[in-house]
């Protein structure tokens, strides 16, 4: 049914991954930076699915599940950390978090 070359999906995943990276470097707010990580993971997932399709295997899809689980776990811990920060600090801007340096 599909006529779309796998490489297109790959390019899309590359673009999304790149945008995720840009977002990580560009955003200042802890939680949005965290979101950009999620974005990157999604790009990875896309790549996995595309490759699975390309090789006509299921393993790729299995990996997606694992990735999603890990993402969920990270989300739980990450958001907990965010909340903790919010408890102890006023700002959630990473640029204001630099007690530790040099």
């Amino acid at each position, binding site marked *: 049914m599909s006529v779309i070359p796998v490489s297109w999906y790959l390019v899309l995943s590359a673009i999304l991954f790149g945008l995720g990276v840009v977002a990580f*470097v560009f955003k200042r707010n802890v939680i949005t930076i965290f979101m950009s990580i999620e974005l990157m993971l999604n790009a990875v997932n896309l790549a996995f699915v595309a490759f699975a399709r390309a090789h006509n295997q299921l393993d790729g899809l299995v990996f997606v599940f694992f990735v999603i689980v890990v993402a969920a776990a990270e989300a739980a811990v990450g958001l907990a950390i965010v909340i903790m920060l919010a408890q102890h600090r006023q700002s959630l801007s*990473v*640029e204001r*978090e630099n007690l530790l*340096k*040099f």
Partner: protein
Amino acid sequence: MPILDHLWIILALPLAGAAINGLFGKRWPQSAVNSVAVGSVTLAFLAVAELVREFTLLAPDQIPYVGRYFTWMVAGPFKVDFSLQVDQLTVVMLLTVSFVGMLIHIYSTGYMAHEGGYYRFFSYLNLFMFFMLTLVMAANLIVMFVGWEGVGLCSYLLIGFWFLKKSAADAGKKAFITTRVGDFGFTVGVLLVFATFGSIDFSAIFKAVAANPISEVTLTTICILLFTGAIGKSAQLPLYVWLPDAMEGPTPVSALIHAATMVTAGVYMVARMNPLFSRAPIAMLVVAIVGAVTAFYSATIGLVQTDIKKVLAYSTVSQLGYMFLACGVGSYAAGIFHLMTHAFFKGLLFLAAGSVIHAMGGEQDMMKMGGLRSKIPITYWTMFIATLAIAGIPGFAGFFSKDEILEAAKSGPNANLILWVLGVAGAALTSFYMFRLVFLTFFGKPRYDEHHIHVHESPKNMTIPLVILAIFSIFGGWFAAPKLIGGIDYFEKFLAPVFSMYAPPMAEPAHVLAESTASPEMELLKALTGVPVIVAVLGLLVAWWLYIKSPETPKRWAQSLRGLYLLLLNKYYVDEIYAALFVRPLLWLSTNVLWHGVDEGVIDGVVNGSARVARASGGQLRRLQSGNTRSYASWVLIGAIGFSVLLIALYVKVVH
């Protein structure tokens, strides 16, 4: 043959004396110290006497008689035995050294009686005897070098005996270091000797040099290097500067070390190495020139000195010059002969001067003396005899020896008239300043405060050596006397084997003898023998006229010839020149360039600099960790892209 088989006894005696006095003398009474010191030296002298007796019994082929004791150094091909040897030359030196040494020891017991560190003095003195005897008995260059350096050490200790006086300590240091400069040459010379002959034993070297011809360049280099050592030790130009300062030491020391024995070591060494020197004409010429020039040069300085010991010091330098002149012109025997006579009369002069100083209560300036003739007759007479001897007045020891030297310079194997002229001029000056000394000291009116200074004759133990030496200053030269009337110079004949055994074929000392026996030459010889005598007498008369007849003339001349006078008075400013040329630049260089410049500046600069660079770069690198998460992410990103690009680049390189 008790002694000949145990040559070491001669050395052991004074060494033992030195050790005993050095270790226990501090607690002992002077008498004990005396008996140890004088006793050991006297025994040594007796041993030498016995040695001479046994020596005369030796067959010619047993000479030189060598005694090996133990191997001192061995490393690969290089092997040194501690070995002593006896031959005619050694005998002469041994007799002179031990005899004069003994007398001076006796004299010192009186002279030093009231000094602190009495035991120390005698311990040093004995130690000196030990090293000096080692020097003359050595059978190889290294053992000789032991004595050579050892006497230098003792002279350092004895000059600096009154070490509380800065001048004394300085003088001692100066003496040691200056001679060390000469020893540098000597050392290199020894190295070259070994490199050339593969041995440092005298006999081996001489055999080798006689057997197979060595390139003259090498020989000349060797001789000149060795002679450098002699220059240092025997205070010749340009290294004589230490000897006058050495007069800071006690007078007996000046007499023993800086007149009679140590300073003549150079002459002895040259004579000892005669087979080499005889084969290196250029070196011989150098020796002769240095000798002659020194003889004249230092005589000129002697003219104007007022310190009685300084005068004697310069005269010593000058007399040593004569000895080298003798060796230089190939008449080693004459050199050694003068060495011996000089030991007598110069030793005497110093002792007498010491007696004068003793009498004057330490005053050394002749301008503050005068008219002592009557007060200290023995000193006066002995000193006068010595003066006659050194001035070369016929009949006295100095006359014969000096005469032989000048004669050799004129008509010896390698005669040289210019040198002869220098020598004669020196002789004239010598007799002048010596009589000047005598007149200033013993004649005219007293120039000192007679109420404060009570002049008194020295005690027996000081005067007796004077008398003995005086006798030898008269008769010491008479071995050579027959020569004047066509007889044989017994002294020269006695030494002949030493200087002929390995002599190069052409230069037979024998033909000199032959020549001298021929009657027409004898006339000429007599005639020219007159010249030194004449100039000597002239010198005497001038001195008499200047310092007794019209005492104010010298001052007038000093005024009129102020420049020259000052030049002489300040010894040609040589010390100042050396200081300006060598000492100060070297110190400056070492301090500012080497130490602060190279060490602290360059090297440590690099070392600490690199440390500083490291810290600085660390200070920069730590800024990578700016604490800002976004920057960190950027670094990770840079790394990611960087490495991916790198890998892809390599990939592309490989694939395409």
